[in-house]
C-alpha cells in the first residue's frame, strides 16, 4: 500500500509531504494503516474548542484500486495513530 501524509497549518504554515510504501513502516504502524482502511480513528479531543496554529493531517492510503483518505485536526488524532503520523512526519519534506 502507498501511504501519503500531508501535514499543514502550524505556526509556520508550512505543508510537509511524505509518501512511503507501507512495507517500509514498522509492524505496528502497518497494522494502524490497515485499520484506517475501514475505520476513521478519532481521539478524545473531538470536542475540544477550536484553537489556532495547530496542525492538520491528511493521510491517503492507496490499496490496489481503492483510495482511502483520513483527515484530522491535531486535537482529533487518535492515540493509536500518533506514532504513525510522527514517523511519517520525520520523513516529510516541505511541499514548496
Amino acid at each position, binding site marked *: 500500500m502507498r501511504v501519503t501524509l*500531508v501535514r*499543514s*497549518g*502550524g*505556526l*509556520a*504554515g*508550512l*505543508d510537509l509531504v511524505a509518501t512511503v510504501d507501507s512495507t517500509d513502516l514498522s509492524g505496528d504502524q502497518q497494522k494502524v494503516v490497515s485499520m484506517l482502511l475501514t475505520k476513521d480513528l478519532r481521539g478524545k*479531543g473531538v470536542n*475540544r*474548542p*477550536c*484553537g*489556532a*496554529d*495547530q*496542525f*492538520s493531517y491528511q493521510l491517503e492510503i492507496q490499496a490496489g484500486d481503492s483510495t482511502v483518505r483520513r483527515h484530522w485536526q*491535531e*486535537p482529533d488524532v487518535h492515540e493509536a495513530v*500518533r506514532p504513525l503520523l*510522527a514517523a511519517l512526519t520525520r520523513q516529510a519534506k*516541505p511541499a*514548496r
Partner: protein
Amino acid sequence: MSYQSLACILSPDLLYKLAREATDEQRLAILQTLELDQSFRLRRAELAARQVPRPLASMVVGVGGTPDRSIYDQGHSSAYIPGALVRNEGQDPVSDVSVNQAYDGFGFTYRLFWDIYHRDSIDDQGMAIEAMVHYGDVYDNAFWDGAGHMFFGDGDGQLLTDTTKGLDVIGHELTHGVTQHEANLTYSGQSGALNESISDVFGSLVKQYHLGQSAAQADWLIGSDIVGPELAPALRSMKAPGTANKHDDQPADMDHYLHTSTDSGGIHTNSGIPNHAFYVTSTTLGGQAWEAPGNIWYDALLDPKVIHRSTFAMFAGVTLRHARSRYGATSNEAQAVQAGWEAVKVRVR
C-alpha cells in the same frame, strides 16, 4: 402576492406549533420565516454582546496592570492537561531557560496590551496567562488551544528551535486569545488569514515595544529567533512577504491571493496581505508602530462591525473609519491607513 398571515411577527415557539398544523404551503412559509428570524436574532445577540459596556473590573482605578502568569512543564507529553507547575506569578527565575523565557515573554506581552491599549490580559478581565512549555516530542510548533492555554514545543532543530525564545511568537499566540474574545474571527479563508495577521501584527508590536524600536528600525520579521536552518532567517516578513525563507510563498497583494484547500484556505500564507498593509501604514506614518497604527488596529479588532466572517475589505474599512474618527478625516494617520490598504490592493469599503 398572497399575504401569509401566519408568517407575521410571532414568537418562534408559536411559529413551530403552527407549522405542525399548517398546510404544506403555509408550513414552507413559516419555516422560511423561522430561518430568517433566527439569522436576525443571532446577529442582534452578537451585536448586543459586543456593545455591552466593558466589565467594571478593568475600568475601576487600581484594577489591572499586573499579569497572572503560570508556566507548566509538559515533560514532552502530547497531553493537553497541564503538567507540573514550575513557575508562578512573582516567583524567581528557575533553572529551566524555556520556563523563564515564557514567563518573561508573557510579561512583556501583557505590558504592551496594558500600557498602550489598557487591556487587562487576554479577556480584558485579568485572565490567567497559562503557558505549557516542553510540549510534545521534538515538537516544531507553538499554538493557542482555544481554551485559555498556550503550548510551546522545543522544536526539531531543523524547522524550528525552542519556540519560547521568540517574543513575537509568544505575543502572536496570546493575541489569538485576544481575537477569540473580541471579533472571534473564523479560522479559515480570509477571516482566518486576518486572524493570523492580527496575531503577527501584535506579536511584532510586542517585540518592537520591548526593544523600543521605531517602525523604521524594526525588521518586521516574524519568528526570526526560533527558526532552524530550513526556515532561516524567519517564518514571515511583514515588510516583504514571500522573502522570509526559501519556502515562503506569502503574497504581498490581492492580485496574488492564494486559493488553496490546505492550511484552512492558506491562512498563514494570505496573512501576508494584511500584514503588509500594517507595515506600509506604520512606515508611511513613521514613529512607533504601537502608537497610532497599533491603536487603530486594536480599535478595529474591538469594533462590533468586525464579525467572525470579516473579509480583508471589511476590516480595512473599519480601520479607516477609526483612523478618521480618532485622528481626523484628513489626518496623516488616516492617509497612512489608506496607503496601507492601497499598497496591497484591498478595496476599502
